[in-house]
């Protein structure tokens, strides 16, 4: 057991797993509904619009969680990316279509297209990789982590404990 593992329940990872399962189920229901007679109901894309950001956010939290310490300062970036993706998809679904000759353009594109291209396609880049780099030493990987792994691997080899390979 490492210094970080401690006892007790790992709430961050439990939450992430539950969110991932719920999101995948939402996506499954959306696809299943498309097989109904008359095609996909109008609510099906909304399930994807929430399920996809939920699934991506959940698996990121699962990956970023560190022992029992959870995700620390990364809560805000993850919340941000979920909100950006979900609101981007929902606005594209919910806003009235204004794509017509003479339509108002936002940075050269009709409003709904601009929300998708700039909001979903570019905005997360400003936040997520930067958050990853800023928190890397404390949240992701440090020299002592690598040393810990190397020492354990050496100990296992020295003791002649066979791995599956």
């Amino acid at each position, binding site marked *: 057991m*490492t210094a*970080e593992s401690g006892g007790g329940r790992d709430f961050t*990872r439990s939450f992430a*797993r539950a969110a*991932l*399962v719920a999101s995948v*189920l939402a*996506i*499954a229901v959306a*696809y299943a509904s498309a*097989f109904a007679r008359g*095609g*996909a109901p109008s609510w*099906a894309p909304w399930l*994807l*619009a929430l399920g*996809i950001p939920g*699934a*991506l956010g959940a*698996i*990121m939290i*699962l*990956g970023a969680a*560190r*022992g029992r310490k959870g995700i620390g300062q990364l809560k805000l970036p993850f919340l941000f*990316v979920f909100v950006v*993706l979900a609101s981007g*998809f929902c606005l*594209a679904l919910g806003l009235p279509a204004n*794509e017509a000759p003479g339509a108002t*353009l936002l*940075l*050269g*594109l*009709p409003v709904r*297209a601009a*929300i*998708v*291209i700039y909001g979903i*396609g*570019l905005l*997360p*880049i400003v936040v*997520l*990789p930067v958050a*990853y780099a800023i928190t*890397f030493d404390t949240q*992701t*990987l*440090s*020299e002592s*982590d*690598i040393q810990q*792994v*190397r020492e354990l*691997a050496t100990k*296992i080899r020295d003791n002649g404990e066979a*791995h*599956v*390979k």
Partner: protein
Amino acid sequence: MTGYLNALLQTALPHVAQPVVIGVGIAYFAVIIAISVWAARRTRTASDFFVAGHGIGLIALTVASVSTSVSGFAFIGGPGLIYTVGLAAMFIVLPASVTNVMGAWVLAKRMRLLGEARGLMTVPDAIGARYRSPAAQGLSGVAMLVGIIGYMATNALAMGVVINAIFGVGIGWGIWLGMGVTLAYSVAGGILAGIYNDVFQGTLMAAASVLVFLFVLKVGGGLGDISNTILGADPKFLSPWGKMTPLAALSFFFVFGMGSLGQPQGVHKYYMLRDPLQLKWYPLLKTLGLILVLLLYFGVGVGVKAFVTDGTMAPLSAPDQATPSLLLTVTPLVLAALVFSGVAAATMSAANSFINIGAAVVMHDLPIAFGRRLRNELFWGRAATVLIALAAAFIAQNSGTMVAFLGIFGWGLFASTLVPALAVGLNWEGATRAGAIASIATGLIVTLSLETAAYAKVFTFPSGVTASAVALVMSFLMFFLVSWITRREAPAQIDPDVKLIMEL
């Protein structure tokens, strides 16, 4: 999706065999050969051959990873797809804003540390180590081989088409010429040659992409004028869903977003980074690189639509003509030459990566699954490389439309067979061997059966639903369900070093 992805074939490129294009093409191949000779002299062990001895620097790995992430589809088929269905096609590339950092959080650290602790070389290696299961390792290797055959054959054909366009040698000779050069550097220099050729090829792609994008903006009078031209004739093109349904466009985002965690050509590069601490800047640099390379995808797709609408360009005979027609009509010939070399680079880069991964499965993962390791992995790795490349070229030349079918399900097959077992499994101690095997088997069977049924036209999916998406969802659900049922076995299936790596 089948119809759209047939665009991958790119069988209708015009001949551009002019002195400038041929000159740039020859210069391109000369650089490839020079890099390969250099790399061959540095390849001495199986580890050198398959993971570059875990010794690649950050910048080289980043550019190489961008290069292998982008196939010829991004330069030819993708812009053609935008031209056909509008902005819906952007949902294939929009996930790039999150996928690289998602991969870094979910997989990079743990796979790199597994490489550190155990000297792992392949993606199935990681699955085998995680679940203490040669069976899971072998099954994931089989699934990867099936996907690799499809990708390789499609890329071999794409090479033939592009080389024929540049040199006018015919598609058949183009396939063997392109595969011959790729094979030569793959056999001689392994992944080391691949990585440094990818660095050259990725730089070429990024430069070509940015220049073409700027040309499109200049000719079109800026993005606003381009949009106004399109809105005057075809407003639906610029709706967020283009001419597809919201369900279909969002499905692209799901399969290409979540599915990125199962693409071996990207994932296995995590093993190669010399210093694990350099992962800190990897997602940022890779994302920025991808954005540069994908500017052409968006710029040409939207630009050509506007230019055809306002009469600057003649209507296209086929959607795949979007990029070549634009290059031959609007941009200087030298830029066209650069882009054609960039397309050749993209296909060769992807082919090299898949040859290497496939060879590792054949000579490393499958023998482990059957309980015996080969003695001279480097020799057998080179032999497997030759066999896979020849098989791909043969299939590309002789199987007609079957190549399109094989190419279609590659991404989805990797996603549905690898994402739950690998990406979730490396981050959840409760995942079990039975869950992983059930998930991989589900992904393999569902993808193959649904794609075959759809190809044979015995079954039609409702609008917006794809075999890849259904298989990925079912694989996830099977993974969680079987892991839950067999949850008591979970603690005994993790070695102490793997457990430590999962906790960090």
